[in-house]
Each structure stands twice: as structure tokens, then as C-alpha cells.
């Protein structure tokens, strides 16, 4: 099998040296460096790792080797940006086997952040439930407000009747 990136439900924004992806399905944001971005973009299910390595070199303009591409593939898979199990099913050696501990200690090619639901205030009683309440969205429209009963706003003023 050849590596295949997951691209549905993902929005990409190109920066000068990186690509930022928003995964709408999982509400996660990923920052891919040049190499990881080139691997993700070129993983179309038609290329072997060697072909992918050449494509990455051409795309990024920087030297890439098989070990670096494997590292990127594994990080992309861990981030949920590859079709499930592709790296393992492809019979590829894992990054740990391929590159050893020295590279693992280096900086990640893919940085991930979970998009948390916003919270209003710290000085409040603990919430009843675990999750914050749903915020108004197109899928969570506000209900109609209760109409004022038996009340007419005073003309030209804001005071209570």
C-alpha cells in the first residue's frame, strides 16, 4: 500500500514556511513544517515512500531522505492526518525502528493543538456538568425570547413604568 493523506474535512492555510491545517472533524489545528507539509500534500495513494521522498525534495527544495519522510508519515498518522493504518499497513518500518532515538529527541515536524470550546469566566461556581454549554452557532440558534407581558416601553425613556 502507498501512503494516503486524509484531506476531507480539513482546511489548509499556507504560510511562508509552513502549512496550518484545521481538522473540522476532530477540532484540531496542526502546524506542519515544510517537509511534513510536502509529505502530506503528496501522499495521494499513488507513490511509494521512495517516490514520495523525491517528490518532497522537489516540492520543498530542501534535501529529504527516506528516514525524514518516514518520520513525517508517522507524525502525520499520529495526528490523524493520514488514512487510518496506512503507514503500518504499507509494511513500512516505524519511525522508531528507522531513525532511532536521536531523531526522536529532535523537534517535531507536526505540532498539534486541540481547539477548546471557549469559557467565559474563572470566578464562577463549578459547572454542574463536565462540558461547557453550547455556544450559539448556526446549528444552535437562540430561542425566541419571552415577550414582555402586559408591558409597553415608556415613550422616550428607559425607566420602569
Amino acid at each position: 500500500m502507498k501512503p494516503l493523506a486524509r484531506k476531507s474535512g480539513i482546511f489548509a492555510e499556507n504560510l511562508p514556511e509552513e502549512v496550518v491545517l484545521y481538522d473540522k472533524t476532530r477540532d484540531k489545528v496542526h502546524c506542519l513544517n515544510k517537509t511534513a507539509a510536502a509529505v502530506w500534500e503528496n501522499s495521494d495513494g499513488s507513490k511509494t515512500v521512495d517516490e514520495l521522498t523525491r517528490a518532497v525534495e522537489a516540492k520543498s527544495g530542501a534535501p529529504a531522505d527516506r528516514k525524514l519522510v518516514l518520520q513525517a508519515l508517522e507524525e502525520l498518522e499520529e495526528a490523524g492526518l493520514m488514512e487510518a493504518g496506512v503507514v503500518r499497513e504499507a509494511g513500512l518500518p516505524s519511525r522508531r525502528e528507522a531513525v532511532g532515538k536521536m531523531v526522536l529527541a529532535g523537534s517535531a515536524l507536526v505540532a498539534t493543538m486541540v481547539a477548546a470550546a471557549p469559557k467565559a469566566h474563572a470566578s464562577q461556581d463549578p459547572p454542574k456538568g463536565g462540558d461547557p454549554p453550547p455556544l450559539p452557532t448556526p446549528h444552535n440558534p437562540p430561542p425566541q425570547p419571552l415577550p414582555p407581558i402586559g408591558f409597553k416601553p415608556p415613550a422616550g425613556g428607559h425607566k420602569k413604568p
Partner: protein
Amino acid sequence: MLVPSRNQVVSSSSCKLGEHNSLLSFFAYGVKLELHAPDALLSQLAWPIVPGAEVADGGQADAVLSVRGDRSPEGGTRYEIAENGAVSSVVTGLEAAASALEAWAQLTIATLAKDLVFVHAGVVRWKDGAVVVPGRSLSGKSTLVLSFVERGAVYYSDEYAVFDSEGRVHPYWRLPKLRVASDQRVANSLLGLTLGGAPPKPIPLGWVLISRYEAGSRWQPRRLSCGRTLLGLLDNTVPLRCRPEQSVQFLARAVRNAQGFEGMRGEAADFADQILASF
């Protein structure tokens, strides 16, 4: 100034503890918000609840916040704040309820404002750029911002950095909320007159400082890439989950010409000294 306008809602189901409930509608940042709350609570709110808010009449609201007061088993009054019918916060005591209601109103506007992206952050202007320090409530934003202002920076916000489609930073024009009374007095004397005038103009993003307080730390930051700087802002972005594309696009434009740094910071005054000396 207290809330200038509220229309009484005489609804037996929403009256508790002999209180009357009132309705307050206002527009801010293109969003219409309705508050249904006991009079005693509304009278605690300072106006405008959200910077630039204007009282609204009629028409459908984009969101409704309603507050119900009830006797707490421990004594005092317990307030439930509901957003569009879903309980979002429960607080005890009038002052805490007013504070929570104000925060929810501001957050709701920040979430729903369609043409702007709100990021939890303190903001000052230094030279020609915005210094943005992202952080949630109680992360020390207000104290930091005040330290910058005391050293000559121009105040923009202690709560939200407001980004437009070109990535420029707008002021969130309210007095800083400081939890120490003496600091609040300093803020009032420093900024009270300033806030009486027109808000400053939108400016390009200059610096983003991703920092966390650690007693005794000295600011020794590492430079962040454009993408990592963007992640630092997105981590504090209010509408990220409901408008991810807009959030990412607006902030990506902002960070292209900005510098991002990350590190531990010590006391606000030392941090501000170091930052402004280095920029």
C-alpha cells in the same frame, strides 16, 4: 455609569424572591444580545457592558442570556445564567453573578461577531505595532498590560485582541479589570481620561508573546515560527470552533509580518522592562 435602559418583563415564572425581571437589548460588534435578568442584577452592571454597545429596540436577537435567582441552601442567592436556554454558569451572590453575566455577554458577542476574530489577549501599541499577549482569564493579562502602559505603551485591551480581515488589531475599549483594588485605582488614573476619548486606530500585529508566569523567572524566550505563532493565537481564539476558516485566515494574515516568542515570565514589571527594551 449604570445600565441606562431596561424594559420590565412581568413574567410570574421568571420572578423569584420578589424581584422583578427586566429585559435589556443591545447591539455590539454587529451582534444583537438580549439579557433577561433580575433588576437588582442589571443595576450592578456597568454600561456599556461590551465596548461600543448601543441599546437596541425590537427585532430578533442573535442570542439571549437569561438569569434566574433562587435561594441557595447555604443562604444567599444562587443565580443560574442560561444562554439560549442552556445553563452556562451558576454563581452565588449578586456581585459574582453580575461579573459572570458581564463575562458571558462579552464572550457571546466575541463568539458571534461575524466580521472580526476575537482572541483572549492583552494588547498594547508599541512603536507602530501591536504587542499581543494571549491568555485566558486570571492569567495576569491586565497586570501585564498596565505594566506596559506605565512604561509608555498605548493601551488597547486587557481582554481581547480583535482582528479584522486584514489581520489588523483593533482596541477592545474598556478599562482593565484588576482584582487588586489599588491596581484598579492606578489603572483608572492612568487610563480614565484616555478612555474618555476616541479609541485608537487599528494597527498591524507586531509581536506575539506566548508566556506563562513562573515566580522568579527571567524572560529568555525562544523565537517562534510563523505557524507556531499562529497556533499560540488560535489556542486563545474565541470563535475557532464555530468559524475555523475565518479564524485561521484572519490570524494567518496578521502573523505574516509579526514576530512570535515563547517563554516563562517573572514579575510583570520586569517582563515589561525587558520586552520594551528589546523591541
